[in-house]
């Protein structure tokens, strides 16, 4: 390994480690709230309302049907929240300058923050999945697809959160996107229902929602059912990863919001 590659690996490891330490240091803010929220979803939507709905698609109970969606929802919201608050916090306190004045290339900064946010998403995802097992039985049909969809979903929203943090000028700015864009898209992304239940044009409109592909790819991995073709879902997700990575790296290169 060249000395530059070794140095970049050390730098990457430093950012990821620091992010994980941060997640664990404030675990009451990073890990507990999503676990409580999702437990409430399972109790109210899965148990109380779901028991009156019966089976929904492919012979699965409503509880079984919403578990993959809720797991994916917690993964993407936590990945997004982690990176946007952590990177904006570093910008706000000017601690980001520690990295900007170092020899570390931009892609290492981006990869480090994204990896940290993906870790938070995965830890929360596992927590929510464990809680779900108290309410229903789950057997993962396609482990590789399940893992790949989780990884891509978390990466996409980590990148989106990073872009949001770069543009944000105040803490309100990192709350606007989750409130007005992320939450509506998540609720309308097939977490609680199949888009086959919708008439046109709502089905077509729903297909423009990127979260639909993540939720359905993950649901296909776990239950083996999906509203969209899984191949397309992965094409869409990979496309978002590529596009958002380019945008984030360009912002870092131009120093938007970071360098004068």
């Amino acid at each position, binding site marked *: 390994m060249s000395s530059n590659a070794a140095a970049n690996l050390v730098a990457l490891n430093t950012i990821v480690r620091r992010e994980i330490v941060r997640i664990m240091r404030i675990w009451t803010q990073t890990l507990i709230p999503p676990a409580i929220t999702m437990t409430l979803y399972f109790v109210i939507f899965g148990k109380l309302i779901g028991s009156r709905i019966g089976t929904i698609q492919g012979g699965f109970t409503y509880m079984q049907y919403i578990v993959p969606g809720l797991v994916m929802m917690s993964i993407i919201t936590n990945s997004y929240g982690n990176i946007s608050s952590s990177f904006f916090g570093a910008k706000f306190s000017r601690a980001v300058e520690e990295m900007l004045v170092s*020899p570390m290339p931009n892609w290492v900064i981006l990869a480090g923050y994204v990896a940290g946010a993906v870790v938070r998403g995965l830890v929360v995802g596992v927590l929510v999945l464990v809680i779900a097992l108290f309410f229903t039985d789950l057997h993962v049909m396609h482990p590789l697809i399940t893992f790949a969809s989780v990884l891509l979903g978390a990466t996409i929203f980590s990148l989106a959160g990073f872009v949001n943090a770069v543009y944000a000028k105040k803490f309100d700015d990192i709350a606007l996107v989750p409130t007005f864009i992320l939450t509506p898209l998540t609720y309308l992304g097939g977490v609680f229902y199949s888009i086959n239940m919708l008439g046109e044009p709502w089905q077509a409109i729903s297909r423009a929602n990127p979260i639909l592909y993540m939720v359905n790819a993950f649901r296909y991995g776990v239950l083996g059912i999906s509203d969209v073709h899984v191949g397309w879902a992965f094409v869409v997700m990979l496309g978002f990863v590529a596009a958002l990575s380019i945008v984030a790296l360009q912002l870092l290169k131009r*120093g938007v919001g970071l360098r*004068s």
Partner: protein
Amino acid sequence: MSPQSQDTAPALVVDNLRKTYGNGVEALKGISLTVQPGDFFALLGPNGAGKSTLIGILSSLVNSTSGDARVFGISVNRQRSEAMKLIGLVPQELNFNQFEKPFDICVNEAGFYGIPRKIAAERAERYLKELRLWDKAQMQARTLSGGMKRRLMIARAMMNEPKLLILDEPTAGVDIEIRRSMWQFVSGINAAGTTVILTTHYLEEAESLCRNIAIIDHGSIIENTSMKRLLATLDVETFVLDVAAIPAGLPSIPNVTLRRRDEHTLEAEMARSHDLNSLFATLSAHGITVTSMRNKTNRLEELFVRLVENGRQEPGRERAA
């Protein structure tokens, strides 16, 4: 650039550097200067003169509009990563995560420079001890006093063992004892071979520590010379004399202007070439006993004010030694 040519290159060459911000403010108007390896260099100027913009460009936090800066021959614009490996920066504003521990702040900083954790931990211990922060190493940084936070930023800047250490007003708001200990540390670093660039508003610090100096105002360098040569240009000095008593009429001394400040204090303004013996002899002959004396102002301060004021009367003037 080969390691050999890096060794022979100046520590810093600033070449016709310009910076115009988006709002139209021209912070640097094509400045040029050279700092030799091993120098302790003062970069002085009033607030808003362009010092921090220049330091921002050197540390890659500010993008220059045109021109270039080379650190030991390596271009900050074209080989940013290589140039940054050689620089340690102590910024004016606190810029670390206040919730992290000093030890972690230092080790993480080293990590950003690609320094393995084991070496980073050893360096963190060494520099935190040298800056008398080791007993605070595992406390949250926000609990440190102002002076400790400043010293932490120096320890952090040393983690990559830079060849060029840039200190941007590192002693602002720090008490005299801590300031002295900081300068003792930085002087030691400089004596060991690290080039130091210092900006400060405490001009007595610059006068006692720095060998060369540049004064910047309104984005232009208005003076760039050695400290010794600059101080030699000061032709008039004013002394404050504490005296036992002052008679009704002050004596007249050629080439000395005597002024009465109060009943126990005189001011003597005189050419630097004038000897003090004749002053004391005349005062003594008139029954005036001098109990103590001091400079009215710091010599560099006097020159600094004069140069900046002259520069403002002659906009666009640039001098270099």
